[in-house]
């Protein structure tokens, strides 16, 4: 028997043996589908439970701590400022003091101002618009509804 015939016979015997052992009707698709579904479930489980992966859970913990610290540093001053007095805010007392300073400065302006045609020096009256001008030039709040406080009588020569 020549080499080719032997090879051919052996090929046929091998193929027949394989066909005898593994039927063509054998279907692995249902089992494969189950494995795919199981793998999909495991993937979802791993995504929702990162504790099973130590490195990822450590990274997630560090990120969470940094996020919390950032939020605290942003929100804490605003929250505390709501309940604690703010030293930089303009309080009524400070407003009153600033008004007093403005009034005294306006007085100085009046003293150096040119007398009006109807001289107030003679009548002892002061033109209120001078106070307003002086206060406004210093950026201080002046109420025009109330008449300014009468200034002390200037000393006439």
């Amino acid at each position, binding site marked *: 028997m020549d080499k080719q015939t*032997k090879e051919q016979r052996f090929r046929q015997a091998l193929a*027949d043996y394989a*066909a005898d052992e593994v*039927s063509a009707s054998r279907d692995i698709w249902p089992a494969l589908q189950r494995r795919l579904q199981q793998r999909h479930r495991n993937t979802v489980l791993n995504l929702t439970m990162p504790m099973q992966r130590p490195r990822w859970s450590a990274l997630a913990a560090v990120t969470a701590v940094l996020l919390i610290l950032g939020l605290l540093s942003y929100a804490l001053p605003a929250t505390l400022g709501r309940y604690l007095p703010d030293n930089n805010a303009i309080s009524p007392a400070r407003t009153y003091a600033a008004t007093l300073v403005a009034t005294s400065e306006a007085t100085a302006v009046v003293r150096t101002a040119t007398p009006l045609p109807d001289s107030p020096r003679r009548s002892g009256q002061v033109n209120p618009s001078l106070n307003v001008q002086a206060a406004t030039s210093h950026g201080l709040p002046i109420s025009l509804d109330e008449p300014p406080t009468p200034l002390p009588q200037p000393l006439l020569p």
Partner: protein
Amino acid sequence: MADYTLAVGVATAYMDESEAISRLQQGDIGGLEGLVLLHQTKALRVAFLITRDHALAEDVVQSAFLRVYDRIHQFDATRPFAPWFMRCVANDALKAAARRDRHLPLETEDAAQSIELTSPDLSLDEILESSEVSAAVAATLDRLPPAQRTAIVLRYYLDMSDTEMSERLDCATGTVRWRLSVARQRMRQLLPAWLGGDEM
């Protein structure tokens, strides 16, 4: 081989291979089902011939299909799918068989009994006609190491050349020839009625 052809015919009627690959590349799991229907029988037979274990062979083939599912985007759709897939199956089966054989003795009692069933006094026709053919082939394959068994399966079942085998097994052509030569010598000892005398 007739039943395999029938299975392929049914699967082809259901879905073409290129269509199945295209659908799988688009994320459609139905494409994988088409590929399974087309190639599972031959893949199972290759894996079984190498591993000599039905459960292990099925596990190997399932894992190979799962790898196809994962890496189908890397596959060049212009090339034939079957050789690429059979290479994966043969490599995986070889690794699985080698792993298992590290824990099991190579020659078992069953194999020794099976080989005794083949009588060297019978003529070749008588052997081919008898039911002992399968037992003789099985015993021969059982007595070969996994690497030599894989070489025999790739050459005589998948009809691969030395070059193709070296590409499929990721080893040198000389290594493939050496494995085949040693496997043939062993087979001549185990199947003297078939292969004795002249070189196969």
